[in-house]
């Protein structure tokens, strides 16, 4: 058994189940958990340092795990009493964690709902139940349109601002070989990546619909708007002149990274890995609007919350820590180190940030972004994938396929919320 400084520290804070730890004169220790990613860990270490400097009587220990099965890991640990005091979770899990009483609501005096409503981007309101906030993000992500500068120049097109321009640009950048096989796609496509988000919160809304109602408990895309959105999407690869192919280069982002795709819709988290690729000159622009200028975007985020394990002194320390990691200062640091977008317009919409060539389109997209409350994200994504597959592999019509998908998803939601 290895014993070293970090482990002993982690052990010490983990085994103090009751919050009655030692005398008040000693530093209060709280534990924070997040998943492992170089930049995020680095950013959090900086935040912890700043926090501890401002609060010398509090020590924060961070534990992190590989992303794979992070959720299972946390889920296995907390009921076993091994939990942290402040935990990071994906916004989509909030419901589960609240129901299982793993986290507690943020105190209204430090985190008044009305103020938060105003100060944060609107989609953060998904973290509110009733009139209390349960968790807050330090950083958020949204979608934007990446494009390959060189391919655009070659084809003589400009980054599109509307959906029609998008199709035109894609058509110009699609290349084929002698036998008619596509060797370069104008646009990437694949519901397995971010497209299902773009479809739900982007296209469906832009076509005049609302993908869900009743606070995301009722499926509402089996409508004209939904059908239009689906047809727009599938026409890209199933129409007469496809400008893309599902499964080209295995994954949409692979095609873009290889320089074989003109445009690609993806989240802000892709920025880091694209920066590494030599020879790929890329730019970003906001998701295209309709001809009438209607825009819509999808935003997702990881949030921090206080667990039910934190009591007494630890609770107070945890509140202070939460306050700090949700502050403007923390968000700017996170943007600089991790490249994730600030959750508050006060930080996001500064001159510098809003006009940044890379982050700008994402940040501006936050103003009209919606966050889908998923019951089971991978399950619901799978239904989107199958919706398209039925059309492609079984020749089903869009209307039939969307009806089946809507029914299946409603069933999934009913089962989840019926509990």
């Amino acid at each position, binding site marked *: 058994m290895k014993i070293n400084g970090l482990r002993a520290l982690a052990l010490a804070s983990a085994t103090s189940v009751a919050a009655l730890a030692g005398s008040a004169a000693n530093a209060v220790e709280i534990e924070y958990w997040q998943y492992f990613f170089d930049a995020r860990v680095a950013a959090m270490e900086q935040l912890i340092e700043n926090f501890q400097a401002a609060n010398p009587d509090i020590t924060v220990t961070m534990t992190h*795990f590989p*992303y794979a*099965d992070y959720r299972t*890991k946390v889920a*296995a640990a907390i009921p076993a009493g091994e939990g942290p005091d402040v935990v990071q979770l994906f916004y989509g899990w909030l419901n589960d964690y609240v129901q299982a009483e793993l986290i507690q609501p943020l105190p209204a005096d430090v985190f008044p709902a009305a103020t938060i409503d105003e100060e944060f981007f609107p989609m953060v309101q998904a973290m509110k139940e009733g009139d209390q906030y349960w968790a807050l993000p330090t950083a958020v992500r949204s979608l934007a349109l990446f494009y390959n500068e060189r391919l655009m120049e070659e084809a003589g097109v400009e980054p599109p601002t509307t959906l029609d321009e998008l199709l035109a640009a894609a058509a110009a950048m699609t290349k084929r070989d002698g036998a008619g096989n596509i060797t370069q796609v104008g646009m990437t496509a694949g519901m397995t990546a971010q497209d299902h988000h773009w479809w739900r919160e982007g296209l469906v809304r832009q076509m005049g619909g609302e993908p869900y109602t009743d606070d995301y408990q009722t499926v509402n895309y089996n409508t004209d708007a939904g059908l239009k959105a689906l047809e727009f999407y599938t026409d890209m690869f199933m129409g007469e002149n496809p400008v893309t192919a599902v499964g080209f280069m295995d994954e949409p982002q692979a095609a873009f*990274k290889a320089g074989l795709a003109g445009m690609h819709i993806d989240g802000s988290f892709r920025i880091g890995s694209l920066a590494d*690729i*030599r020879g790929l000159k890329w730019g970003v622009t906001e998701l295209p609007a309709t001809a009438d200028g209607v825009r819509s975007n999808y935003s997702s985020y990881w949030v921090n919350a206080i667990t039910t394990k934190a009591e007494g002194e630890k609770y107070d320390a945890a509140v202070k820590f939460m306050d700090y990691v949700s502050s403007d200062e923390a968000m700017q640091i996170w943007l600089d180190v991790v490249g994730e977008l600030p959750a508050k317009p006060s930080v996001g919409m500064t001159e510098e940030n809003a006009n940044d060539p890379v982050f700008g389109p994402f940040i501006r997209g936050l103003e009209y972004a919606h966050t889908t409350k998923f019951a089971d994200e991978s399950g619901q994504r799978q239904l989107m994938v199958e919706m398209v597959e039925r059309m492609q592999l079984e020749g089903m019509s869009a209307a039939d396929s969307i009806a089946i998908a809507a029914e299946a998803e409603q069933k999934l939601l009913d089962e989840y919320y019926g509990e």
Partner: protein
Amino acid sequence: MATAEDLQVKPKADVLLQTGPSRPPRNMGQIIRFLLLFAGGILMVMPIAFMISTSLKWPHEVYNLNFIPDEPTIENYIYVLEDGRFYWWFLNSLIIAVITTICSVIFDSLVGYTLCKFRFPGRYIVFIAILSTLMIPTEMLVIPWYLMSQQFGWLDTYWGIMFPGLMTAFGTFLMKQFFETVPDDFIEAARIDGLNELQIWWTVAMPLVRPALAALAIFVFLGNWTAFIWPLIVTNSVEMYTLPVGLSSFGDEADVAWELIMTGAAISTIPTLIVFLIFQRFIIRGVVMAGLKG
């Protein structure tokens, strides 16, 4: 089943051991056989060659399907090996794999031998019960194991990572089958000679199934070396990760650095290759029948 008389013939050493310098194939049949097997072997390892080629590429070249990188680089290897944590992961995996292999080989062969050579009430049931443990996917056992480890304080310890793998139904089944090939008369003769059951197992039966033991060692080592889900769940601190767990941190929810994964995979293969090369000789040596005593 063979009788003692048949085996009195002590075969010539070189036919049996097949050691000594390898000679080139002697006739047409052998040549064709060799060529076909060689071609088959090359086909078998093509994907692996591709993996190595990817590990030598810069990220922007990863998605080109060329076999030989345009700009080969060992940058990925440097990156992975320079990461200080890598050595902890390697060491952890090594210690765990070695200990579980030794433990498994001993216990699995003991149980396999018992199930094969002893008649006792409940024998069939025990065999089926152990075999049935192969039928529950480990994914479902992970949660109860976690709760157990947490209760006994095994979290984040070597013991915690190791304990599920100390004995395997696979090994038990394998050894049972191979012990079937050991003639009962050998055992009887040893009993008559006054050896106790433990001695018989260790000194008489075990040497006769050496090829199987070698195969078992290779597989148990490999299984524990590459185990992922359980070590992931039971470890907390980075220093305790095993190699697969550590290497998985080169990817996150949004992105996987395939060139690093390939590099990690290539490096991970080396110890298993070494273990294989060491133990496979025993599979080849075959069994030397020492003839009967008395």
